[in-house]
């Protein structure tokens, strides 16, 4: 595939003029292996993927004309409908339709196919006459009904997305006038781990989801921390302890399943070591409750994912590359890279009092657990004004005198104070096996984002993907060796303005790109894209006010409620209107009760059909 050729350049220019965002995506797309361009008997290029030819290897043009004729015969379109092609291929099956004065829409979920097509065939006509869509969400807000023309070779390797698209079209979701034919407000259950560093992350996620307007049920498994600790500390052999652990997990899992049976969430999100057994996940699947897991740990260090990943509908990770290959080997289909983040409401800039500065402040600080590499490397740091906070530090080591509060755990609030009070926060990713700095480490820990969000300065060890999140030298300063670390400490300790510049930039970057709100949005977008049929809101899109002005003309009493709904930037569907009525401050009026009654009937019928 030669991306430098003239055909490609011409196609790209035209695409830039007509669909600039798509052009950007194509340019940055790396075509994976497995594709081949062969030539038909009449010399035309034909795309092949594995054993599948996308067009006839004899006469792709004639084959394309036949495709249009057959589909027109089976599925004619009128003024109220629009042809939607599934799959662009090399366009031979699309061009003949222009001769029939039909202007279709093309859905092609794979950018690489578009790129290969652009490198081999002239797509001018297609780019200027049609719109190419790559994501299901882009199909929303159409005023016409779609008639699907599947290009079967394209369907073959995209069967899941095709099935999703088919279902959505059958449900007639895209023809509404509503902004969103997919449910806006979801019921989401978030299950936390029982204890550990990821426990607050689960809570940040729940907060973010609520901020996004979803109804969130936080299933806080940390209430079981004490009995769990007791179980772990029992003086029994490992085999028996495992039995007890399984029973304990089973009980909590059953409680979660029972909770979901009652609440019927649209989605369950679990994090880290949330206590959900495989059996529970299977039961949730049977109950048609979508499950997602955000694995926020190092997959090489924590291997439980191998047993659990295949049982979740969606698997989000903070690492990619080899991890994705391993997930594919386990037949996990819907995986997605989702790095950590910060919660700016919690990880914020604080006004630190003098007392707090005395208690929490120092020139150098580190907040975290005493992993092996940290114990060793920190013991070699020369600066004496160095406070270490957190647990699992070795009391017999030389570093112990720097450890505060005898190594007791520190609360989130205190952590934020530490970050704010310290001139330099050291951020060394954990590494259990060596005292080296692992620059090949392929994930960025939450601490990186949290310190940045607090507007505090940090020195962080280099990670392979750190540059994807922060600009080196401007937003983040990283080190690769101990010598470099010490040098940077000496340099920045006396450069408060320089630190301020970098920490301010880092905070701006977090607020722009690295909040839990953004992560949750991204997570839901991916889930909705892969399984949109699970989020169809049959009523929201249809049961709404069709003509507000006429409604008010006929029933002037409804004007205040409708105007209030619109002023709150809400759609004029019955859910929003009923919400506005419920949030009123005055006594309920007759006409308001009519809206509530409609909403209650809608809910009753939905409940009965569920």
């Amino acid at each position: 595939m030669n991306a430098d050729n003239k055909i490609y350049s011409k196609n790209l220019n035209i695409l830039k003029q007509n669909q600039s965002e798509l052009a950007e995506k194509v340019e940055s797309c790396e075509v994976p292996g497995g594709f081949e361009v062969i030539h038909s008997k009449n010399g035309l290029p034909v795309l092949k993927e594995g054993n599948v030819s996308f067009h006839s290897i004899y006469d792709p043009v004639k084959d394309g004309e036949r495709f249009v004729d057959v589909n027109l015969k089976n599925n004619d379109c009128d003024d109220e409908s629009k042809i939607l092609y599934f799959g662009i291929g090399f366009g031979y099956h699309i061009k003949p339709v222009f001769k029939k004065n039909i202007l279709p829409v093309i859905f092609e979920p794979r950018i690489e196919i578009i790129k290969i097509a652009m490198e081999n065939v002239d797509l001018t006509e297609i780019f200027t006459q049609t719109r190419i869509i790559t994501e299901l969400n882009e199909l929303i807000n159409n005023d016409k009904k779609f008639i699907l023309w599947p290009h079967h070779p394209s369907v073959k390797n995209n069967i899941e997305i095709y099935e999703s698209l088919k279902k959505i079209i059958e449900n007639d979701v895209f023809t509404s006038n509503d902004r969103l034919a997919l449910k806006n407000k979801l019921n989401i259950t978030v299950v936390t781990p029982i204890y550990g560093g990821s426990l607050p992350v689960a809570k940040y996620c729940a907060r973010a989801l609520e901020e996004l307007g979803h109804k969130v049920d936080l299933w806080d498994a940390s209430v079981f921390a004490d009995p769990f600790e007791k179980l772990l500390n029992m003086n029994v052999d490992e085999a028996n302890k495992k039995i007890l652990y399984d029973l304990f997990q089973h009980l909590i899992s059953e409680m979660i399943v029972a909770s979901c049976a009652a609440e019927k969430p649209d989605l369950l999100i679990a994090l880290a070591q949330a206590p959900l057994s495989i059996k529970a996940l299977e039961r949730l699947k049977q109950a048609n409750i979508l499950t997602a897991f955000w694995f926020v740990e190092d997959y090489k260090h924590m291997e439980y994912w191998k047993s659990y990943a295949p049982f979740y509908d969606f698997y989000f990770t903070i690492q990619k590359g080899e991890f994705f290959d391993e997930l594919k080997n386990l037949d996990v289909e819907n995986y997605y890279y989702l790095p950590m983040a910060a919660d700016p409401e919690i990880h914020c800039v604080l006004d630190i009092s003098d007392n707090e500065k005395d208690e929490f402040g120092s020139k150098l600080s580190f907040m975290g657990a005493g992993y092996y590499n940290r114990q060793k490397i920190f013991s070699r740091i020369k600066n004496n004004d160095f406070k270490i906070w957190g647990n699992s530090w070795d009391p017999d080591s030389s570093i112990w005198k720097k450890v505060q509060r005898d190594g007791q755990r520190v609360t989130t609030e205190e952590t934020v104070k530490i970050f704010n009070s310290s001139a330099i926060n050291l951020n060394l990713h954990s590494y259990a096996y060596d005292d080296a700095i692992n620059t090949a480490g392929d994930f960025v820990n939450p601490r990186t984002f949290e310190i940045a969000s607090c507007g505090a300065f940090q020195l962080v060890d280099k990670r392979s993907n750190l540059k994807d999140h922060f600009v080196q030298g401007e937003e983040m300063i990283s080190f690769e060796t101990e010598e470099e670390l010490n040098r940077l400490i000496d340099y920045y300790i006396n450069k408060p303005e320089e630190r301020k510049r970098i920490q301010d930039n880092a905070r701006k970057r977090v607020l722009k790109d690295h909040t839990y709100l953004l992560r949750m949005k991204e997570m839901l977008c991916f889930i909705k894209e892969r399984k949109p049929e699970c989020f169809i809101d049959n009523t929201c899109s249809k049961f709404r006010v069709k003509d507000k002005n006429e409604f008010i003309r006929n029933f002037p009493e409804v004007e205040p409620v409708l105007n209030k709904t619109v002023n709150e930037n809400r759609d004029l569907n019955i859910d929003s209107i009923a919400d506005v009525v419920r949030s009123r401050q005055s006594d309920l009026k007759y006409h308001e009760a009519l809206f509530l009654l409609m909403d209650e009937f809608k809910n009753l019928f939905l409940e009965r059909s569920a």
Partner: protein
Amino acid sequence: MKNILIINLARLGDIIQTIPMIEGLNKKYPGCRVFMLVNSTFIDVCKIIPGLYRAVSLDFSLIHNHIFSNSSSVENGYEFFKQVFDDLRTNRFDKIINITPHDIGVITTFLSGDEKAFWSNVNDWSKYYFNITKNWNTLTLNVVDMFKRIAGVSRQECFRTIKLDYGSISYADNLLRDYGLTNGCYLIGLQPGASTVDKKWPLDYFTELANRIIKGLNAKIILFGGKGDICDGAVIEDKFKKNVINMIGKTDMLQLCALMSRTDILITNDTGPMHIAAFTGTKVISINMGKEICETTGPYGKGNISLQPKIDCYPCSKPLLCSKGICRKSIKPDAVYKLINYLCNDVNNNFADRFTEDMEVYISRFDNYGTIDFLPLFKIRLSLRTFYRKILRIVWDLSLSEEFNDLSVSTAAAELEHIFEKYFYTNDFHEHATDASNKKLLLLEIAELSSNGLNLSRQIYNYSKNVNNNIKKIGSLSKQLEVIDENIFKAGEGLSELKMIISMYKFEIDSLKGENIAEMAEETCLIYTYLKSRLNLSIKIIDYFVELRSKTYINQKIA
């Protein structure tokens, strides 16, 4: 002339079960006109309700269309409902009684009349009912009696049969004659259908029962049911041919009632036609499964039988999570047949021992106050659950009706003692008295907390006369009240069945209507007072049994 509207948007059975309430309203307000708003699916049933002036139907199918059809719009739906309620309001109801157990009922009540009418029937029983709908298993009254109390009519027995017209009676008699039903031949009805699967006794059990009846009794079988039960009926009819009169899906409401009235015994799931049969005076044997219990939804009237599974997981609190359905299969056809034989032939035998392994058999009776109760036909062990439910029944009956004093309490407790002795093994309720005396400690603790709550509320009320100067004090007292409430809820967790008293208290606290601090404080005082009185009532009844136990113990020692 009083115009009264009953909002009853539930199912067939709920409509039939209003018969005594409507009878009571007609007696209490002579000359009144009783309307009932119902789901249009069940409008035909209203023809058979004696004393009902007019049924008004709300077309659920049309409403569904308004909401979900492709051409639906909020403005069309608005216009539809506005028309319905504008018309309804022209009747200018003096009283609106809502017995629909969800928010649709409340909103409909609001829309159906003016403010006076809306508040006309908000009483302690209606509040109790709405609390109960969130916890059906804790209702200790039959729904029919519940409706009577909500409507504020006399509790005295006012059983009235469904009104039948001459045409329907003739139809039934002619049909049965055509099918060869002669004098001396029993007509046994079977109702194999139900609204949900968890309420259905297995079809093959009904088939086996039909087989036993045909072979063992001089009887014909008549099948009842709606169009949805046609297939089930066909299975039974195919097997027994001329011995079965299959009327499933073949009758209108009046014809159904007429045929029911000619039936000697109806064996049925807990479903609408069961109630029709009960109100035609037909003896009913109902089979309860899942979460249905005869105490609350059993067939109204004297001498009806209800069967319940004798398994640990019954009644079921989470039918959604159960895939086993043990309750459906535990009541065996053989046992039901023997019961029918017993009832038909008045056979005196050791019946109880032979087939009550898997089921409990209850028979309905009216107590001295006209309230229906289902009590064991054969003596059984008194469970702790039943012990407390019977106590709770007295608590609600006396506290919500403001009719209690010491004499009423002791009378009610003595009557309960009599019931325990007659229908249950005596040892049990003495043992349960021990458990109850432990519960008493909790009740006393909560009573003390509610006294503290009452004192604080009174203080808040006094300070509220000058809110601006006392805002901090009020704030501090409110925080203390929150702690008291938390402690009451926590302590209430240990009360088992009596926990309903705390649930009702929570419901009342959550439903405070006051518009300013003074009004809310006044209401809160009342709520704590109610709580205390219910707790004290419970304690009094428990004391009665504890004392009874002591006397019994002493007597045994002397003996």
